[in-house]
C-alpha cells in the first residue's frame, strides 16, 4: 500500500538518481556509438537537480512531479530534456490529488506521459527511441492490472517489459533523433534513451509499492 504523496515520488526519484549516476558513463558510451556522447551526463545533470528538490515543500505527488518535470526541462537540454520533462509533467497532471496510489491510477498517468512524449517527439514504437521502452511497459502494466494484479505486480511486469523493449532496440534502424542520421549503421546498437527509460520504470517498480 502506497500513500500517494510527494515523499513517495521523491523515493522514486532518489532511487533513480542513484541508478543514473552509477550508469552515466554507460549511457554516454551508448550515445557515443550512435549519437553524440552526452546522454549519461545530460541525465545525471538533470537528476542531480531533481535530487536537490525538497519533497517537504510540495503538498502533493502531482505538485512534486510537476516540479521534477520542469527541473528536467530546465537542466537536461538536448532531446532528453523536453522528452523526460514532458513525460513527467503529463504523468503528474494525470495523478489524483491524494489517497492511495492504485494500479489503475498509475496506468492512466503512464499513458498520459507516453502521449506527451509522442506528441513532443513524434516518434512511434519501432523508431528506436525511448518510446520503445515505454509502450511495451504500458501494455504489460495494463495487462497485469486488468488481470487483477496489484500495483507492485503490475510494476514488475512493466519493468520486465521495459527491459525487453530496451533490448529490442538493438536490431532496429533509428528513425528519430540523432541516431537516425546513421541509417543502416544505427543497427546493432542499443538506444541510450530507451536504456535510461528502462531504469525509470525499473526504479518505479522498486520504490512505488
Amino acid at each position, binding site marked *: 500500500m502506497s500513500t500517494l504523496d510527494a515523499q513517495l515520488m521523491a523515493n522514486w526519484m532518489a532511487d533513480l538518481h542513484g541508478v543514473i549516476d552509477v550508469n552515466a558513463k554507460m549511457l554516454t558510451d551508448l550515445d557515443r556509438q550512435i549519437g*553524440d*556522447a*552526452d546522454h549519461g551526463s545530460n541525465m545525471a545533470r538533470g537528476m542531480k537537480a531533481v535530487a536537490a528538490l525538497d519533497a517537504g515543500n510540495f503538498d502533493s505527488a502531482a505538485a512534486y512531479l510537476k516540479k521534477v518535470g520542469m527541473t528536467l526541462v530546465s537542466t537536461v*537540454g*538536448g532531446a*532528453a*530534456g523536453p522528452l523526460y520533462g514532458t513525460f513527467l509533467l503529463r504523468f503528474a497532471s494525470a495523478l489524483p490529488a491524494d489517497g492511495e496510489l492504485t494500479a489503475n491510477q498509475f496506468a492512466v498517468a503512464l499513458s498520459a506521459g507516453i502521449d506527451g512524449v509522442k506528441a513532443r517527439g513524434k516518434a512511434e514504437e519501432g523508431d528506436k527511441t525511448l518510446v520503445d521502452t515505454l509502450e511495451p511497459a504500458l501494455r504489460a502494466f495494463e495487462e497485469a492490472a486488468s488481470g487483477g494484479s496489484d500495483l507492485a505486480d503490475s510494476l514488475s511486469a512493466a519493468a520486465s517489459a521495459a527491459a525487453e523493449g530496451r533490448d529490442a532496440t538493438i536490431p532496429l534502424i533509428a*528513425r528519430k533523433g540523432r541516431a537516425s542520421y546513421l541509417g543502416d549503421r544505427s543497427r546493432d546498437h542499443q538506444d541510450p534513451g530507451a536504456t535510461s527509460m528502462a531504469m525509470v520504470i525499473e526504479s518505479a517498480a522498486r520504490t512505488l509499492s
Partner: protein
Amino acid sequence: MKKLINDVDTVVADALRGMEAALSDRLRFDHENKVILRKDAPKQGKVGLVSGGGSGHEPMHGGFVGLGMLDAACAGEVFTSPVPDQMMAATAAVDGGAGVLHIVKNYTGDVMNFDMAAEMVAEAEGVRVESIVTNDDVAVQDSLYTAGRRGVGVTVLLEKIVGAAAEQGRDLDALLELAKKVNGGGRSMGVALTSCTVPSAGEPTFSLEEDEMELGIGIHGEPGRERVKLGSAREVAGMLVEAILADLDFTGSPVIAFVNGLGATPLLEQYLMYGEIARILEGNGITIARNLVGSYMTSLDMAGLSVTLLQADDDIVKLWDAPVNTPGLRWGC
C-alpha cells in the same frame, strides 16, 4: 583528454566568464541563464534575433552577437541543446516590441527545446515568436525515416544576412520569409579527418584509421554518409562539392561560398581547399559572388571542414555586405 579547462562540469560557465572579461565593452552576459546579449538590447522597434545551441561550435553562436547579426545567443552544455529557460530569458530580453525570430538548427533536441520556449514565452510574456529551422546538411537524407537534414553552415550565413535585414528595420514576417529563402537556397557538406573529444566524455567520440575520413560528418561528431579513404585535397573538394550539387542546382544565380574549418584544421589547408572548391565551381559554371573562409562553426578540436553554398540574389549580396560588428565576424564598421 587534453584540454585547458578547470572542470568538465563548469567548462561553459567558465568560458562565458572569460568571454565577458574579454568582451564586456560590447556584450552583456546573463550568467544564470547562460545568455550572451548585445549590450544595447532590446532595440525598440527592431525584431530581436535569438539563436543558440550546444557549446563547442565557437564562435557560433555567442561570437555572432552584435550589430548586424544576433541580439542574443543561448549557450547550452557542450554539444547539448540549451534548455527552454535560457531561450525564454533571451527572448524576453531582446524583445523590442516587434517580435522575436528564433534561429534553430535542425536537431531533435534544439527543435524541441526552442518549441517549448516559444510556446511558453508567447503565453507568459505575449511576445510574438517565429522560428526558422535550418536544415542544409546534404549528408543526411531528408526523409520520413530520419530526423531530417541537420542545420550546419547555412546557419552562420543566415544569421549574418537576416541580421542585416533586421538592422534595416524589416518586420518579423519579412525576416521569416527571407530566412526561409536563405535556408532553402543553401546546402552544406562536411568531412572529418579526426574526431573531437567532448570534455564530459573524456575520450574521442569516434576513431578513424590513419588513412580514413568520415564523409558527411555532423558538427557534433555524428557519423556521416560513409567512411572512405583519405584523399587529396582535390579529391576531397570534389566529393564535397559533388554531394552539394547533386542536391540543388546552383547555376541559376551567383553563390556565397563558405569554407569552414571544424576546429583543428589549419587556415593554410582551408585556403588550399577553397582554391580547389572555387576551381570546381567555376568548372560547373557557378559564379562566386562572395566567400568566407575560416573556422566559424567548429566542432571542438575536430580536424576537417565543411563547404556551404548559398544562392545569393542581389538582396542577399547587399545584406551580406552590410556592416556587421560581432566578435566573430566584422566588417564595414
